[in-house]
């Protein structure tokens, strides 16, 4: 009952945000520059939330998320530009292939733990990037020209679906299995939870939505290049999740929104942006290693207040 209330609440909120922004776009208040920032924001939220399910919920440290984004971007670009399919079909194609890539990468590498897993995912992401770099069909190092098709509607619908699916997954039986792996892998194994299965499931879902984000990203700019998807992109996504709080969906979303705005303002000073990013990362880790929100959600903040009141 409570869960469905949150679900409808979220849906209504999403509709209101969509209506307001769409109204502002139609009314000409938001020009192309702001629309682009909004789309960028949506892409970053999708990436952050899709990495959140791997790192925050399941506790598996992956730093190769940009690789799956690249798969989604390139596959969808091939679908629209070479095969002439429509954008929604292309997005789904990109996401499915990206999920398959996640499955392929996840099955061998999720047997590893901690640091080794991090390095293995980084390695896989680099291999994916180098493959795209060397395939002439998608333009090699020069990149691939893609028509600009993404609109605010596509990006926003993508975000809503991503958040809904991942929030519901986290609250489901499977999600609880994943959380138990994060808390203590050995204990959850002993409780009869198939840890490998849940880790692979979370990783595959994460890569699916990274693929969606990649597909929307690919059709937002006029060109995609393999260098866009290097490990710096993976670190960017990692920063959203870490800053927001490892294990907090709303935290990851807020961090993605906030950092997109910051980087939009610092777009002309890329070095300063990276210095600020890295300093924030270090300071947050030194003084608040759980991230700004910890594992709390923004909704639980309100609940906490209510409970505290009734107890007194």
């Amino acid at each position, binding site marked *: 009952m409570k869960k469905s209330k949150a679900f409808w609440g979220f849906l209504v909120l999403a509709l209101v945000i969509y209506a307001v922004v769409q109204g502002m776009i139609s009314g000409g208040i938001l020009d192309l520059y702001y629309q682009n920032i909004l789309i960028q924001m949506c892409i970053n939220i999708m990436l952050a939330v899709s990495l959140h399910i791997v*790192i925050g919920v399941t506790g598996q*440290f992956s*730093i190769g998320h940009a690789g799956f984004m690249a798969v989604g971007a390139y596959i969808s670009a091939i679908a629209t530009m070479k095969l002439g399919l429509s954008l929604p079909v292309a997005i789904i194609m990109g996401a499915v292939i990206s999920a398959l890539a996640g499955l392929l990468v996840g099955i*061998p*590498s999720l*047997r*590893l733990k*901690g*640091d*080794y897993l*991090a*390095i*293995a995912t*980084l*390695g*896989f992401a*680099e*291999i994916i990037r*180098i*493959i795209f*770099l*060397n395939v002439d069909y998608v333009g090699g190092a020069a990149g691939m020209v893609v028509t600009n098709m993404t609109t605010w509607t596509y990006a926003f619908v993508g975000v809503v679906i991503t958040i809904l699916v991942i929030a519901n997954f986290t609250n489901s039986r499977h999600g609880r299995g994943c959380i138990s792996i994060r808390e203590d892998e050995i204990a959850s194994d002993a409780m009869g939870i198939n840890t490998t299965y849940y880790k692979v499931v979370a990783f595959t879902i994460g890569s699916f939505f990274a693929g969606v984000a990649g597909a929307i990203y690919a059709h937002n700019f006029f060109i995609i290049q393999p260098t866009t998807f290097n*490990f710096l992109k993976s*670190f960017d996504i*990692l920063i959203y999740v*870490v800053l927001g709080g*490892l294990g907090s969906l709303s935290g990851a979303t807020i961090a993605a929104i906030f950092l997109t705005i910051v980087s939009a303002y610092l777009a002309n000073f890329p*070095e*300063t942006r*990276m*210095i600020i*990013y*890295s*300093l924030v*990362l*270090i300071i947050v*880790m*030194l003084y608040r*290693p759980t991230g700004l929100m910890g594992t709390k959600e923004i909704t639980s903040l309100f609940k906490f207040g209510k409970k505290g009141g009734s107890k007194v």
Partner: protein
Amino acid sequence: MEWLQQLVNGISLGSIYALIALGYTMVYGIIKLINFAHGDVFMLGAFIGFYAIARWDLGFFPALIISMLLCAIIGVIIERVAYKRLRNATRIAALITAIGVSLLIEYTVIFFRGASPEAYPEVLPNTSISILGASISSQSIMILAVTIVLMILLQFIVHKTKIGKAMRAVSHDADAARLMGINVDNTISATFAIGSALAGAAGVIFGVYYTRIEPLMGVLPGLKAFVAAVLGGIGSIPGAMVGGLVLGVVETIVSALGYSLWRDAAAFVILILILILKPSGIFGKNAREKV
């Protein structure tokens, strides 16, 4: 005889990887942290060497020593400022901090001097020596000699000196070492100092050999050196040397076969194969050897 030449090229490249990998493996052995900033210490070493040679007109060896000293200091500062508080933190927190330090060093350098590459001045005579029909540059031999001397020196420090004994003890069991009266903090700092000095040396050697340095040059060699450390068995000093050399030779062979664009992928394929098939690496068995 082209193969012999490629082999020498591979060994030269591999010895650079090995020097960087030593720092990774020592730090990992002692505090179980992948020091992502290590590749950037390597970059700083290359730049310090460059300024020493180009601005202050020093020779190769003075530049090498200055670079090693400054890098050792930088390594200790990084350890004291960023990593020391994280001794008891989760592995993820430590790893993220290391990534943060790495990005901070890279972009601070870019902020102050721009991202443009720099051409290393020629400090070593570059003549070709013909051995068994293969022409081998005197630089390769020089690099190999410097690397071997540094590695022997490292073996001496680790196995024959008091601080080396302390390092081995702390990596074996930090709590027991503390109970035995070893100053664990100083030992960890010494490990960072030695590892960073080796990275600095690798930076200068890289600059002399490849003649082109830039602020982001440390990222890929850093990752590959880490691969080398894993390949050899992380925590093992002989493992890092062997892993570095194997990686260098494999990369050179892949390039020589005409797949030079796939060269970077080769390292990561090796990494994934080794992680899946034998995560402890080639020298993983002798865990007592680790530092």
